[in-house]
């Protein structure tokens, strides 16, 4: 029992904190640097330690320190309790959701690289990730600011709408591989079709991938679905009144969300840690496979970032319309086709 607790703790520390918080911090740098480079700028490169700038990689650290020391401002007529808890409520769920994501293959028959080997599998992920909505909604409501309130309302209606699309897009994958356990899905994807093509989700469910990416971008509230914090009309939406570490929690939760979505996408559509033609128990193979998983996640992060800095923002009614008029019908269509094909196939 003690051993189990210790192992779980170690997983939490290494997989969770190191990977997630470090990853989220680095993503803030990636976001800034990438947007800069796309826009013909140079981007952050001034923060240095002993004259070393390392492409500006010290900026996230400097940002973190800055956030820590900023004044924690609370509006006079805010609901203090909710105002205090809302950032946590939005920060914790995406972290929790990572419990269901396997980072690498089972080693010696045990899932070392998965925090919680739960039988709920990806359903747990979907369930937990949705809780974050409350954080944003309450943050906007408790701020006593009309712009925040509008941001909060937009968040809730947008996220509820796209939750449906997201789930529908996943159902097809679950049907194809016949399981909701991430390890099993990855294992099923490592098979080859026609002897050469890996049975990755992107091959078997291409439409589902597009729908998944679109709805998950909406879930992470990024362009073109970044209405809740649409700076041009709502200042900063639900986080308008937040500052200091509380703002940092919203800020980080967005990047954790990106990581989560990318890792999720890598597991479902790109075979997770699977590298075609690579199998075995040797440590370097495992390392390669973990690396492959990270690379796939990274590629999806890149895609999301690229989208963020390419497209304009939709309007609120267009976003909701897009969700209900395009995503959900296409999701249902995908489901129907998948069901028919599967029925015929078997």
């Amino acid at each position, binding site marked *: 029992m003690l051993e189990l607790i210790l192992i779980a703790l170690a997983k939490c520390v290494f997989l969770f904190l190191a990977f997630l918080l470090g990853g989220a911090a680095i993503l803030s740098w990636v976001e800034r640097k990438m947007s800069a480079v796309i826009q013909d700028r140079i981007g952050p490169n001034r923060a240095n330690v002993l004259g070393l700038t390392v492409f500006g990689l010290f900026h996230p650290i400097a940002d973190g320190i800055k956030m820590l020391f900023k004044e924690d401002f609370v509006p006079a007529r805010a609901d203090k309790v909710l105002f205090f808890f809302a950032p946590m409520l939005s920060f914790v769920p995406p972290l929790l959701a990572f419990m269901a994501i396997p980072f690498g293959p089972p080693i010696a028959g045990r899932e070392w690289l998965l925090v919680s080997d739960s039988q709920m599998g990806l359903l747990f992920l979907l369930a937990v990730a949705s809780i974050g909505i409350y954080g944003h909604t309450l943050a906007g409501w408790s701020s006593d600011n009309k712009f925040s309130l509008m941001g909060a309302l937009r968040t809730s209606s947008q996220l509820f709408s796209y939750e449906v699309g997201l789930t529908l897009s996943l159902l097809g994958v679950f049907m194809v591989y016949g399981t909701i356990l991430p390890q099993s899905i990855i294992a099923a994807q490592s098979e080859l079709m026609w002897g050469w093509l890996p049975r990755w989700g992107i091959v078997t469910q291409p439409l589902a991938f597009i729908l998944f990416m679109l709805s998950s971008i909406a879930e992470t509230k990024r362009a073109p679905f970044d209405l809740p914090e*649409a700076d041009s009309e709502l200042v900063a939406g639900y986080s308008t009144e937040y500052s200091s570490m509380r703002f940092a929690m919203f800020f980080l939760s967005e990047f954790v969300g990106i990581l989560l979505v990318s890792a999720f996408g890598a597991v479902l559509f790109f075979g997770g840690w699977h590298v075609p033609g690579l199998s075995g128990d040797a440590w370097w193979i495992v390392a390669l496979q973990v690396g492959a998983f990270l690379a796939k996640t990274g590629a999806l992060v890149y895609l999301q970032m690229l989208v963020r800095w390419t497209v304009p923002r939709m309007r609120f009614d*267009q976003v909701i319309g897009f969700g209900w008029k395009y995503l959900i019908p296409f999701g249902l269509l995908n489901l129907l086709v998948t069901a028919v094909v599967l029925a015929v196939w078997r």
Partner: protein
Amino acid sequence: MSHERLPMPDLTCREMLLQMGPSHPAMHGTVKLDLRLDGETIVGVDTTIGFLHRGFEKMCENSTWNQCFPYADRLNYVSPAINGVGLALAIEKLCGIEVPERTRYIRVILSEIARIQDHLTAIAAAALELGGFTAMLWAVEARDHYYYLFEDVTGARVTLSYCRVGGVRNDLTPDFREKFNRAAAITERLLVDIDKLLTRNRIFVDRMRHIGVMPAAQAIDWGFSGPCLRASGVPYDVRKDDPYLVYDRVDFDVPVGDNGDNFDRYLVRMEEIRQSLRIIRQCFDQMPEGPVNHPDWHVTHPPKSEVYGTIEGMIAQFELVFRGPLVPAGEVFQSVEGGNGELGFYIVSDGSGRPYRLHVRPPCFAIMQSLETMLMGTMVADIIPTFDSINMIGGEIDR
């Protein structure tokens, strides 16, 4: 798109009052909008201007004619070169003098560069307000190269104080044309990229088309001018309809739109940038060599060598500085095609060296008053893009 709402008899709905501005992060120029919202739909807009009032007209009445030019730069600070040209033309019309040929071309070139800057800014703002940050920065990047050009010629990037009564501060730099060609090439390349990002993108089109619609007849009634009027389909352009300087010698098209919505305004501006580049290239080909200032010392400062060395130049210099150029008594109206419409100067002289009255007709003032009409029934998210498509400039509207 219909914004009609279903009746909801069982729910008690109240309109929400929302005050946007005067220092809202997205408000370009200080203006305050008191909105009445039904959900996110706008049912009332009350616009308040005047937060940037600096008493431009009154300041001018207490300065010599030449001292007005630095103030005029601060009217439409997005395209400052045009303001100076407009004011100079008005004063010269009253004086009844013609500036040298070369100066006329220089003024056209700088005006068109300023127009390019103005339109690039408006396009950048259109993209920015829709979250298209990349397109915005590309437009701003293109604009920056023209700032370098201005710096080369006038000594400042925005606050040029370049035009004078009877001429300009100094001639173009020898490598100006070459530098302009470089900047123009960059602009054209970036315009293609912006075009790819925005023009046929459905998200962008959905956000812009049929928003902020202003039909042609109504636009004329409101006193629209410039790109906003042309977007409504009225081919009115001061450069064509009342040509000044050398606009009657260059070949260019007047772009017009169909619906008078935000999308048409964006397209008109995109096209006008290309037309402006065309005009400038023609001007370079036609421009003669020669002096840039009117030889009459009653209006233009004598050359420095004359001032330093001869009592004649010294006296003229003194009189021009403490008394001001001799502008005959009378009144005159002169308008030029500004970045966002017809920029007019109405000046009255009592024969002294200072304006007796100087009034500016800011193009966006007329357009701004129709904001309520344009916004009614649209949504909160449409306010800022529509507001931007007007290209309201605080310095100009509040004066």
